[in-house]
C-alpha cells in the first residue's frame, strides 16, 4: 500500500475550498508517513478540475471519469472509488467532511472492510486522528488498526488551505466499470427554501438587534452588517413589539428558537426570554456598551463598546476578509 489519496469535491465547476484543506491534511499525513499525495477528482468531464489540482505541489492527480458520474450519487461514487482504491491500494484516503462525503464515504469504507474516521480536527503521530466527542466537550484520539487503507474526513477550517503550495503534478485517468442499474437513487436539482417566509430556524448566520439600537432609523447599520455576512436579521421582543421589524424575526421564548453557526447579538442585554431562543447557537458574539450585560455570560466573544462604532467597523472588516 502506498500513497495518500485526497478526494476533491467540486463546487461551481472549481475545486472547493474544503478540498484544498483536505489536501493540506493529506500533505501533513503524507510527510508523517513519508508518502506522496495523489488528488482524486470524479465526474464526467474532469479535465478542468484535474488541471486545477495539478497546479499544486502534489505528486499525482487521478481523473475518475465516467458518464454515470456526471451527477453525484452515492452508488456511483462509492463504486468508482472502491474500484480505484482496490486497484491502486493507497495507505490512506482523505476527504473533506462535507454533506456529500458523509453520504457515501462510510459506505465506501465499509465496502473495503474499513471504518471512516470522520470530522477530524488534528492529525498526530502514529498516525492518530483527533475528533470531537459529546458535541465538543471532549476530544478523542482514534487510531486505525486494520490492515487496509485508513479513511478520514477532515473538518472544515481545521487545516489551512493556504498552506498548499503551487506545483506541478502528473495527471492520469481511471475509468471505472459502472452500470446504470447500479445507480439506485435519482437526485433532483438543488433548490432553495421558500424565499418569502423568514425561516430563522434554519439560518446558519444571524445578526440580532436589541433595544441598544435606540431607533428604527438606525437599522440600516445592522442591515449592512447582515448583508456583508450573508446573515439573516433577527430581533429581541421590544424591537418587534415596536413594529421596527416583523414579528417573525423575533427570537426568544415567545418567538423563534434558533441554532445558527454564528449568532451576533447587537445591543441585546440578554434577558432570559431572549436567551432561551438562541442559547443553542454554536458561536455567540455579543456587542453591548454595558460590560456587565448578562449576554456576555453566554457569549463566546464579546465587545464591550458602542455599537454605533463597532458595527460599522465590523462590517468593513468582514468585507475585507471576504475578498
Amino acid at each position, binding site marked *: 500500500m502506498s500513497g495518500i489519496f485526497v478526494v476533491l469535491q467540486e463546487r461551481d465547476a472549481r475545486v472547493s475550498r474544503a478540498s484544498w484543506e483536505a489536501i493540506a491534511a493529506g500533505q501533513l499525513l503524507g510527510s508523517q508517513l513519508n508518502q506522496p499525495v495523489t488528488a482524486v477528482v470524479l465526474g464526467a468531464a474532469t479535465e478542468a478540475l484535474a488541471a486545477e489540482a495539478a497546479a499544486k505541489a502534489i505528486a499525482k492527480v487521478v481523473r475518475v471519469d465516467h458518464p454515470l458520474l456526471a451527477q453525484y450519487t452515492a452508488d456511483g461514487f462509492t463504486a468508482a472509488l472502491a474500484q480505484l482504491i482496490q486497484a491502486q491500494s493507497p495507505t490512506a484516503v482523505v476527504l473533506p467532511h462535507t454533506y456529500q462525503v458523509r453520504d457515501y464515504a462510510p459506505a465506501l469504507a465499509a465496502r473495503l472492510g474499513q471504518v471512516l474516521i470522520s470530522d477530524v480536527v488534528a492529525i498526530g503521530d502514529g498516525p492518530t486522528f483527533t475528533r470531537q466527542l459529546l458535541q465538543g466537550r471532549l476530544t478523542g484520539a482514534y487510531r486505525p488498526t486494520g490492515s487496509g487503507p485508513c479513511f478520514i474526513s477532515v473538518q472544515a477550517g481545521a487545516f489551512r488551505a493556504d498552506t498548499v503550495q503551487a506545483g506541478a503534478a502528473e495527471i492520469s485517468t481511471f475509468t471505472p466499470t459502472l452500470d446504470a442499474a447500479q445507480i439506485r437513487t435519482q437526485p433532483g436539482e438543488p433548490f432553495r427554501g421558500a424565499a418569502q417566509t423568514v425561516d430563522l430556524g434554519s439560518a446558519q448566520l444571524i445578526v440580532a438587534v436589541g*433595544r441598544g439600537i435606540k431607533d428604527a432609523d438606525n437599522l440600516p447599520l445592522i442591515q449592512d452588517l447582515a448583508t456583508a455576512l450573508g446573515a439573516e436579521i433577527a430581533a429581541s*421582543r*421590544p424591537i418587534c*413589539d415596536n413594529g421596527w421589524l416583523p414579528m417573525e424575526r423575533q427570537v426568544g*421564548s*415567545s418567538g423563534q*428558537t434558533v441554532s445558527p453557526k454564528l449568532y451576533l447579538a447587537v445591543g441585546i442585554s*440578554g*434577558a*432570559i*426570554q431572549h*436567551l*432561551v431562543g438562541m*442559547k443553542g447557537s454554536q458561536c455567540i458574539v455579543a456587542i453591548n456598551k*454595558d460590560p*456587565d450585560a*448578562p449576554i456576555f*455570560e*453566554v457569549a463566546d466573544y464579546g465587545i464591550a463598546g458602542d455599537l454605533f462604532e463597532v458595527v460599522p467597523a465590523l462590517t468593513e472588516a468582514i468585507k475585507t476578509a471576504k475578498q
Partner: protein
Amino acid sequence: MNPLALTLASPQHFSILEKLLLALLTLTSAALFWRRFGVVLDKILKSKKDAGFSLRPLGRRVGDFVWEVMLQAKVIRQRPLAGLAHAFVFWGFCAFALVTLNHFAAGFGLGFLSPDGLFGHCYFSFAAVFALACAIGILGLFIRRFLVRPKWLGKKLSYESGFIAFLIFLLMATYLAAFFLPETSPALRTLWWIHTLAILTFLPIIPHTKHLHLLLSPATVFLSRGGFSRIPALDGDEDFGLVAGTDLTRLVTLQAYSCVECGRCTEHCPAANTAKLLNPKEVILNLRGYLNTLGPASDRPLIESLAAPQVPFQCTTCGACEFQCPVGIEHLPILVGLRRGAVNTGAWDDDYGSKLFLALERGSNPLGMPATDRDKFIEKAALPLFDGTQEYCLWLGCMGAYDPQGRQIVTDLARILNYLGISYGVLRKEKCTGDAARRLGNDLLFQQLAESNLEALAQSKVKKMLSICPHCVRTIQEDWKEYGVPPAIEHHSEFIARHLHRLPSEGAGGFNPLKSQDEKSRALAPEAGSPQPPSTATSPEGFVTGHDFSRAETAAQLTGALAPATAPPVLETIVYHDPCYLGRYRNIYEEPRAVVRATGHLVEAPRSHERSFCCGAGGGLTFLGEETGERVSHVRTAELVATGATTIATACPFCNSMFRDALADKGDTAPQLLDIAQLTARNLPGKIEKQA
C-alpha cells in the same frame, strides 16, 4: 296589632274541601319538584365516585359549613352590599323553616306552634324581624339585577330570577301583612292561601333554575375537596383527566348544579378581563348543560361542549374564580382536568407546549437552559453546596438558576442568610418541580419529576427548604404529596419577615428612603470603611463576589429613573403585588408587607390581597406563546404604575419577569422593579466586589 295572626286560621276554619285541595296541591307541587330534583340527584349519584374521598377531617368541613354557609362570610365579604342583602334572604329562609312547617301543618289541622305560647310568640316575632330584613334584601337584589344591571350577571335579563324574587317578596309580604290584620279578618284566609300558593309554586321551580343552590350549595360547601386548587389524583389506568362525561365525578356534577350564576368568578378572571375566550362562569354553565343533555355516562368529549379547545389553556390558574365562589365550586380542578384530558391523550398540539414538555423530558428545567449554566452561576456567586449539615436547602428553581433577574434575587437572599449567620446550601443538581407540567395537565411528566425529586431530596437528607418562588413552594409542599412526603419548605417572604428584627432597616448599607437623589447614588457605591456584618461562630465567610448585577442595575435605574442630582428629597413609595401562588394559594399577605414596610413606605394597588390581579405567568402560560389581545401582564403593570409608586415590589420571580417586560415600554420613567429580597438586602452593609 295582632302579632301572630298568620297562624291565623285555626284548624276548624279550613273546610274539608280546602284541606283536600291543599293536600292535592301540595302533592302536585312535591311531585313536580321531585320530577326534576330526582333527575339532578340521579345525575349526581350516577357520576363516577370521587376516588379517595373521605368525610374526615370532619372538623374542617363543619368549619367551612358554618363560616361560608351559615355565616355567609364569603358572600358578604367579597360583595358587601349585595352579599348582605342575600344573607338576609338566606337567614330569612332559615328563620322561616319552622314557620313554613307549621303553616302547612296548620292547614291540615295539625299546627304545632301556638301564637299564644311563649315559644311560639317569641319565634313568630323573631321570624317577623327576618321577614322584614328578607323583604328589604330581596327588593334590593331585584333593583340591582334589573335596574342597575352589573356586567357580571350577564347580558340577558333573567325573567325567572325576577319571578322568584317576586315570589319571595310575596311570601314575606303576606307574612308581615298578617300582623296588621285583626284576628277575624277574612283577608287572613286569602293571605294564607297566597302564601301557600307562593310556596307551592316556588318549590317545583327550585330544581329547574339556579335556585337549586338552595338545596345543593350547603352540601357542595360541606363536601368540597378543601384546600385550594386541589387537583385530584388520577384514578386507575384508564383515567386521563376530564375527557368525556364518564370522567365527571360526583363532586364535579354537584358543583355544576350548584352554580348560582353570580358571575364573581368571571368578574375576577384575568383572562375574561382581557377579552380572552375563557369565561369561568360559562364553562361551569356549559358543564351543567352537558350534564342536562348528555348526562354523566356520555362518552362525547367534554371539550367543544364546555369550551373551545384553546380556552382551558388561557387560564393562568390564578384561582380568583375558585376563591370568589360562594357556593363552593372548585374551578381549578375542572379547568386543569380539561387540560389533562387534552394533554394526557396527546390531543393538545401546541408548538410551545410540546417544546416545554420535550425540554422537561430531556433535561432538568422548563427554560431548556443547559445545566452547566446553573453550575457556573453557583460558582460565580460562591453559593455553598448543600451537604446535609446546613440548616436550609436553598432551592433555586429555574428562574433563580437561569434568569439574570432571578439570580440577583438569589444572590441578595444569600447575602441576607450570610448576614444572619444562617447556614444553607444549594443542591448540585435540581430538576424542575413540575409546576408547569402539573398545571398544564401532563401527569406523566409531573409524576416523573415529583418522584425523581423526592428521591433526590431524601438522599441528600434535605429537611428544610427555602425558595424565592411561590410556584416551587406550592408544588413541593402540596402537589408532591401525591407521590411521597416532601420536606418542609417556606417562601423567602416568610423567612425574612421572621428575622426582620435582626435585619437593619436603614444604615450602613446606606439606603434611606428620604435621601436626596445624588446622595442615593453615592450611597450605593462601595464605601471605604463600611462596617463588617456581625460575625458569629457559624457565619460563613460570606460576601458575594462575582458579578453583582443588583448594584449595577439598581444604580442605573435610579439615576435614570429619577431627576438629576439637584432634585429635592424623594420619598420612596413601594407598591406590593401579591403573587397568586403566595396570596390566594398560601394565604401569605402580611409577611411580605412587613418586609416592604421595613424598607420604605408601602402603598396598595386597587386590587390587592386576595383580590390581587394575576401577572399572567401562571398555569404554565409563561412558557407558552404570546397572548392574544390585551396582555394580562400589561393590565396589571398599568395598575401598579398608576398608584404612582416609585418602586414595584414583587415576591415571585415570574411576576418580576412579566412586569419587567411590560415596563420595558415605559423607558426611563418606569418605577423600579425589585424583589422583596432585594429591598431588604439594600440595607445590608458589606463589600460587593465586582469580578474583573
